[in-house]
């Protein structure tokens, strides 16, 4: 296993966003984290990346306990992430955005940008890119980091169908390279078409996990999404 989160819990006030939830992320696979709104997906995601401290639980990465590590320390271990709302360094150029992830030559940056079809945007100010382009830049920056585990929070949210197709290709290419991906997504067609493993959360708890086929045919999942 690449990553294991054991007995994770988080409450906001009296509301249990995640309670006693345990998940395992297999190495070299694409894992989707799904569930209805309020299921605790982003909360769990944030606890794994370190952006949100957990109330209880343990996170292990490549067998090492990283529970107490800060976000930048987890990033240096190889955990890279994007956010639900596009977050780039808006006042900096695309070049500087990428170079912060990895100090490298312009040629290598152009190759990274060509993977997300943003070649020719190297000198643009990140804040001037469209929402979809910003999403792709965020992805290119995450991929440039010397990561082994990529976490994407709703990568296709708010992007047009063309960029959605590009995302699909980027993720499958990453799998071919042996990278591990965990992503949150609401678009079930996208999830079912590229995931190797799907984890379903509901009301802050693990509902089930399995292959896309197993998840699709599980009545509990349908019930969680549509209600009884």
């Amino acid at each position, binding site marked *: 296993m690449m990553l294991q989160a054991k007995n994770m819990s988080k409450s906001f006030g009296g509301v249990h966003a995640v309670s006693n939830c345990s998940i395992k992320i297999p190495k070299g696979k694409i894992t989707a984290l799904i569930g209805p709104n309020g299921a605790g997906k982003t909360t769990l995601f944030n606890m794994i990346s370190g*952006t949100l401290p957990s109330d209880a639980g343990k996170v292990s990465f490549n067998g090492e306990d990283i529970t107490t590590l800060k*976000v930048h320390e987890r990033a240096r271990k190889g955990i890279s*992430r994007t956010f639900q709302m596009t977050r780039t*360094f808006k*006042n*900096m150029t695309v070049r500087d955005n990428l170079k*912060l992830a990895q100090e490298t030559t312009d040629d290598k940056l152009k190759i990274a940008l060509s993977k997300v079809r943003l070649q020719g945007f190297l000198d643009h100010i990140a804040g001037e890119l469209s929402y979809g382009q910003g999403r792709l830049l965020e992805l290119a920056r*995450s991929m440039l980091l010397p990561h082994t585990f990529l976490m994407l929070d709703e990568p296709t949210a708010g992007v047009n169908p063309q960029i959605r197709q590009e995302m699909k290709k980027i993720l499958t290419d990453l799998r071919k390279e042996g990278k591990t991906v965990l992503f949150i997504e609401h678009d079930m067609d996208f999830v079912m078409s590229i995931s190797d493993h799907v984890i379903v959360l509901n009301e802050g708890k693990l509902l089930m996990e399995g292959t896309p086929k197993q998840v699709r045919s599980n009545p509990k999942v349908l019930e969680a999404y549509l209600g009884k």
Partner: protein
Amino acid sequence: MSVAVQLIMNGLIIGSIYALVATGFSLIYNVTKFVHFAHGSVVAFAAYIFYLLIKLGLGLPLSIILTIIIASIFGAVIDWIVYRPLRKRKASAAVLLIASIGLMILLNSAILAVAGADVKSIPITNPVFDVWGARITQLQVIIIAMVFLLLIGLYFFMKHTKLGKAMRATADNNAVAQTVGINPQKMYTYVFMIGSGLAGVAGILVGLEQNLFPEMGTSMIIKGFTGAVIGGMSSVPGSVAGSLFVGLVENIGIWWLPSGYKDAIAFALLFVFLLFKPKGMFGGKS
């Protein structure tokens, strides 16, 4: 004509010193996202340290270098002792602001207690030139040149070095900066060191150009803050332009008003901008 040139020159000279104060202040604000009002007291602290070193007979070059180093370390110590524990407790920007005001009062009082209330000055040989009828001293030429070079150097540092970019990234989006492996705590320490180092230079220049008095830090932060507000707190170049503007307006203003109104002019400018253009000239839409 010569009076006009003299007032403009005076405005540019004092405006340059305000620009150094405002630049350090603005840098710290942009990275840490709170108003470090004690920054002016760091200027005063540096000025008194410089005075002490000169009095100890260390000579001008060594005193300058040591003052800048001490001011930088002092800035980092302030962050570690005062602000870092508050940040750990998730203190809001308002709490940090109150802490900075408290620190400013504490530092001013400490200077008063240690150095006394009397006005001090550093005697130096200072030849005078005549420029278009205005009297300009050698030191004043050095002040303008040094501030100009420092600000250019800072611009290149922030724009082209890895550390500068990491600081800009933290200023731009702290959460994302952490996900690319940037340690925000380190950035806070560095920005306090750089900002306070600039305050150290400002303290040296004020010490040489004007007199030293315990409350000088308050006066400096009011001018630096006004310059930063006029230029736009989020813009370091804007803060420089705003500070030069403050220097010019307060000096040209005394053509019509008694010189005692200098501070009042700065305050009036601050109120006007806070009321009508709170994000300043270069800080985006209000």
